[in-house]
């Protein structure tokens, strides 16, 4: 990555905005919801200064459909919200995925279900990775664990969205959005991107009309479309998986955790290591594509795997699929805005180790 300047202390939500603008984002459509309001506020202030447009929509539904319109015009565009607001955007996300438009969606998760609460949560894992909208689609999900990582992934997300013509979601939580950390805004690694010759720009009489669409009334046409999308998804699964394996080499127990929860798990790993317990962590950075290879690389020392989430257990389904019966899969989670405690996580790990070793 090409470093730019100096480190500045920024709130996560504002760092997202700054990184998006650095990534070429010039259009933002959104609707107020806690705990991500600093982001639209930042964009309202900063986008006009770079010749961009911020528009507050009448609803999350309208905002994502404005994104659909702008993305179809070939520009870099984003929206942001938090859990219940992202639920409202799912129809639009499905249409955007179906029409193969690039865009970036930020979800600063809070507790649910329903109106839930406004404290940090990770209970939108299913919503983010299983397609909250209808149909055979996928979208990329980045799950950063620090303000720096959030900024880096945010800048890169626009390139990745353009490359694959797919929505990219940056899945943070209230903690990532609200906390301040030093951050250095950096350019994303260079990628060769295809021209946007599909965009609706007005034909100028020079080409046949471009159509942005997800409707295929003939079943064979729709299946062909879905097969093409599935091939694209397979390429993404091959090329875009990201994860961190932390002290897994000699680990008996491997935690699996992402985002804010993974920061606490890292402390629990340190604590247990000092007690002589060999533990490590797989930290998925992409939730989709899912880092299956991180599990396949684990050595013969591993006796147990434990998912740690700020939910009642959602990612654990993917952990079980990845484990494929090779290891027992345990779980520790807190929900509703409660933050896991490293001592409680360590305690759960000790109990599991006693059971399996």
């Amino acid at each position: 990555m090409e470093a730019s300047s100096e480190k500045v202390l920024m709130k996560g939500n504002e760092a997202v905005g700054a990184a998006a603008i650095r990534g070429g984002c010039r259009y933002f459509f959104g609707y107020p919801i806690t705990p991500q309001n600093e982001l639209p506020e930042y964009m309202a202030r900063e986008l006009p200064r770079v010749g961009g447009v911020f528009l507050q929509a009448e609803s999350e539904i309208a905002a994502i459909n404005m994104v659909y319109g702008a993305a179809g015009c070939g520009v870099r565009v984003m929206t942001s919200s938090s859990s219940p607001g992202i639920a409202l955007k799912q129809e639009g996300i499905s249409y955007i995925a179906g029409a193969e438009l690039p865009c970036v969606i930020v979800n600063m998760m809070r507790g649910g279900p329903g109106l839930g609460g406004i404290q940090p949560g990770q209970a939108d894992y299913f919503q983010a990775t299983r397609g909250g909208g209808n149909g055979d689609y996928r979208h990329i999900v980045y799950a950063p664990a620090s303000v720096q990582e959030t900024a880096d992934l945010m800048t890169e997300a626009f390139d990745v969205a353009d490359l694959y013509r797919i929505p990219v979601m940056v899945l943070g939580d209230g903690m990532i959005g609200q906390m301040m950390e030093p951050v250095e805004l950096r350019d994303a690694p260079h990628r060769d991107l295809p021209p946007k010759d599909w965009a609706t720009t007005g034909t100028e009489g020079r080409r046949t009309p471009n159509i942005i669409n997800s409707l295929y009334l003939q079943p064979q046409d729709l299946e062909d479309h879905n097969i093409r999308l599935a091939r694209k998804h397979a390429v993404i699964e091959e090329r875009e998986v990201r994860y961190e394996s932390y002290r897994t080499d000699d680990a008996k127990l491997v935690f699996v955790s992402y985002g804010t929860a993974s920061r606490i798990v890292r402390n629990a790993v340190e604590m247990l290591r000092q007690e002589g317990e060999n533990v490590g962590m797989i930290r998925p950075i992409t939730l989709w594509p899912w880092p299956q290879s991180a599990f396949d690389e684990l050595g013969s020392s591993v006796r147990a795997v434990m998912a740690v989430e700020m939910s009642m257990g959602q990612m654990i389904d993917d952990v079980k699929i990845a484990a494929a019966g090779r290891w027992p899969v345990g779980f520790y989670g807190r929900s509703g805005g409660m933050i896991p405690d490293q001592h409680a996580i360590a305690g759960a790990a000790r109990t599991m180790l006693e059971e399996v070793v």
Partner: protein
Amino acid sequence: MPVVFEKTRGLTDVETHYCPGCTHGIIHRLVAEVLEEMELLDASIGVAPVGCAVLAYKYFNCDMHEAAHGRAPAVATGIKRVFPDRTVFAYQGDGDLASIGTAEIVHAAHRGEKITVIFVNNAIYGMTGGQMAPTTLLGQKTTTSPLGRERSHAGSPLRVSEMLATIDGAAFIERTSVHDPQAVRKTKAAIRRAFTVQQKGLGFSMVEILSTCPTNWGMTPVDSLQWVQDHMIPYYPLGNLRDPETENRP
């Protein structure tokens, strides 16, 4: 032989799927002719709805988006904010615009989005097979008001143009019909005026066009045209409700 008539370049050669006697075809042609005559076609981006006109993106010979149900004004907003110099229009039916899409149409007007909306009101859901719409007349029988629409149960038909005409950002609002040749000509003039208002950047513009649905009304095409005149126009009076030049407003 001299050419005395040609199909507008504003429409493609794709055969439309509309039922016999449906007036969508007339309205498509009027919009396309106006865009061609005003030399806007090659710089236009249209938005198709969900409903009978869902395939309009195949018929208009310009760049098009197919929107989700009711969301065409939001999609058009996204397009117009990217390309303020392009002509952007949404083509919507009454289920799309007056039911599921009320928030989007009200707020597009409220923001004064410089887009043009062609609102085709045939008082029924056509594509799904003739269900009651917010615009269905009192007493009108549909598959979901089999005994006729009752005010006490389903309220009175929604007059969208009158409602939008109360909004400051709505620069041009006019209700027209296509039930006879004179009405067709007036509709074309209103569409031209609406696009002119957009060209001048004066704000939101919409033409509500009373239309027919012989299939789901259970009438012949000719009887349907007569029904517009006898039943729809008395409840949905024709005329301009808002025009920046005449400063016409409620």
